[in-house]
């Protein structure tokens, strides 16, 4: 029984490996008020982040982000007004709220959402 549980735990860890290997930094950037603070406007699915009532931006999940490749997401985060002129999303790259490498980690986090 104990061995079976251990196997199950290992299997669970392996199954989540692609997300957890990249998510911590991106998740922190998504949540931290002094970084992206994306959580103030967007909700995340399930256990991907803290539950909030935020609804200024759409809720984010794998299905919604399906059509967004990394390049398009990176461009959106860099300067969202170029895609949506009246958006209230901050220009994370253009105003240097996030470094290029941080935007990359955020993109990885978003693309790994369930």
């Amino acid at each position, binding site marked *: 029984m104990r061995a079976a549980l251990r196997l199950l735990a290992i299997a669970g860890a392996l199954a989540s490996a692609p997300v957890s290997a990249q998510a911590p930094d991106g998740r922190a950037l998504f949540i931290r008020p002094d970084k992206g603070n994306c*959580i*103030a*406007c967007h909700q995340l699915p399930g256990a991907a982040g803290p539950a*909030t*009532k*935020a*609804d*200024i931006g759409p809720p984010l999940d794998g299905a919604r982000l399906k059509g967004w490749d990394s390049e398009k997401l990176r461009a959106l985060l860099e300067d969202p*007004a170029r895609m949506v*002129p*009246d958006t*209230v999303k*901050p*220009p994370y790259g253009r*105003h*240097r*709220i996030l470094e290029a490498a941080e935007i990359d980690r955020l993109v990885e986090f978003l693309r790994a959402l369930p």
Partner: protein
Amino acid sequence: MRFPEILAAALLALVPAAHAGANAVRADIAARLAAAHPGVAPSDYALGAAAFDAERRAQLEANTPAPEAAGILAEGKRLWTRKFKNGRSLAQCFPNGGRRIAAAYPQLEAKSKRIVTLETAVNQCLRTHGEPILEAADAAAMGAILAYVRSLAEGQKIAVRVATPLAEERFEQGRRLYFTRMGQQNYACASCHLQSAGKYFGNTALPAAPGAASRWPYVREGRAVTLQAQVRECLERMGAAPFPAGSDELSQVDYFLTALATGQTIRPNAWRPR
């Protein structure tokens, strides 16, 4: 413009192409909010976040009157009636000892062509009588005084009308500041309080602009938070250097917001959580 650096990246996406006059701006904003929130009565905008959030509204009602308001009002009354060295007082600078005056501020002063806020009027009185003036951002003194003076106008309808070309000009300056994106986050005041009014930023519903002039000051953590203090807090959150307390820019925003709320009831000193 005092802070060209924070306005350099301004985008006026929310601004109508041409200034249509204060009445037209008010009507346009009212119509947009009514369309977005048909279930919210415009008189409820004065409740701030609670206008859009039943849970917050219940908390507000449970904290009415605000537990710490009585102490602030007592201090405000003390300062308002305190005798100056020449025997006069703030109360004697204003008609009826200051009763019901708050509904008519800010005012456009014809001589100086500047907006006179309640803060400015208090300091004009102090200066006239040789007393040291107060910092507009001093919550303990100016905040308490304004909390008291606003309480003397509780239930009055705001009566700030934009009736002359110069008044229109000042209203327009305030409106432009309100709609101008600024700071690192690239928000305008209007991004949150018009474009996203009633939506949730985290777990807090965003108050609508036309209620801002009705409900100030609110009482938070034992302090009276004035309209100018609120605007300065928002600017900091936007990653912009706040306009100085008592500046013409803040006066113009105050004038714009108050003219927007003309006809609404003054409901000051309500509880607000951090």
